[in-house]
């Protein structure tokens, strides 16, 4: 009888507490402190922090108010990836675009891109067709600013400790005269022996 009671109690305890293991998949807040930190790649919190600081720097500079028309029209130019990893630079630029768009200071054109690569080909085609049907020349709103940049990576090791620094560089150029009116870079450095959860 005692054995049966003990077994039941143990089973109940397992049911309540013991079943969940650390390796079970679970949802975590994408912007929360439980995200994984790795030394071999740029993590979502790195993109997030870099974009946040760069947007704050751009807004605080006051250059966006200098555009003759508000909101300022911006196009995203080339973002060079000089890191060892293959990344989609939209991880940075899209966050910046969304953040600037939310402020009401900037709108981004999606029908102009670097090397003729248009982000939204359909919008460009429909615009051309509308102009053709109306017997007019297509009116393209040219960007007042372009955003360009570079991603860099620096790795160093001391004993078992690795350190990686990712540098996010951005420039905002006035298309009329080709002058960079705002530039900034943000560094994110991570150090450790292996990847971990947390900040």
């Amino acid at each position: 009888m005692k054995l049966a009671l003990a077994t039941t109690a143990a089973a109940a305890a397992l049911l309540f507490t013991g079943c969940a293991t650390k390796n079970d998949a679970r949802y975590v807040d994408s912007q929360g402190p439980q995200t994984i930190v790795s030394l071999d790649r740029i993590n979502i919190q790195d993109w997030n922090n870099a974009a946040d600081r760069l947007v704050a720097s751009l807004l605080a500079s006051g250059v966006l108010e200098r555009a003759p028309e508000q909101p300022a029209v911006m196009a995203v130019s080339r973002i060079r990836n000089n890191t060892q990893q293959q990344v989609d630079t939209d991880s940075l630029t899209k966050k910046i675009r969304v953040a600037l768009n939310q402020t009401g200071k900037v709108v981004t054109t999606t029908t102009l891109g670097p090397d003729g690569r248009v982000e939204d080909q359909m919008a460009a085609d429909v615009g051309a067709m509308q102009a053709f049907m109306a017997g007019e020349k297509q009116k393209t709103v040219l960007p007042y600013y372009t955003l360009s940049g570079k991603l860099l990576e620096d790795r160093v090791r001391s004993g078992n400790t690795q350190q990686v620094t990712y540098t996010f560089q951005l420039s905002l150029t006035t298309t009329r005269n080709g002058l960079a009116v705002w530039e900034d870079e943000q560094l994110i450095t991570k150090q450790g022996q292996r990847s971990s959860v947390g900040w």
Partner: protein
Amino acid sequence: MKLLLATTALAAALLAGGCATSVNTVSRAQPTATPDYVADQRVITDSTLARKVAIVSVNQSTVSNNLLKIQVTLENRSSKPQAFTYKFDWIAQDGMELSGPTGGWKQVQLQGREVRAVSAIAPTPAAADFRLKLREN
């Protein structure tokens, strides 16, 4: 034997606390800056963190014509480095919380006795109020 014990105790003390260094600072005797201080209310749920990191002041300004910027000055009260995370929430005039693509928890590390400000710019001109959350790592 006593000498051995004393040496061991000294070595342990050095190991445990000997690496802590604090920050010396110098600034203008009569500051010329005139910050726009914000009267704040504080809710302490982690008294350990509150003892380690003090909120010195909160001040505000406006950037880009209509975006609220908040700066919170923090002080590490201990002589050891303290790492913690913080997050700004933004609240519209109607009390609704606003979200942005780049919000979220961010890490900051204060050296011993260091005073440093953390700041954020509101994601939209609609932001009227803010809330700063601090969390120990």
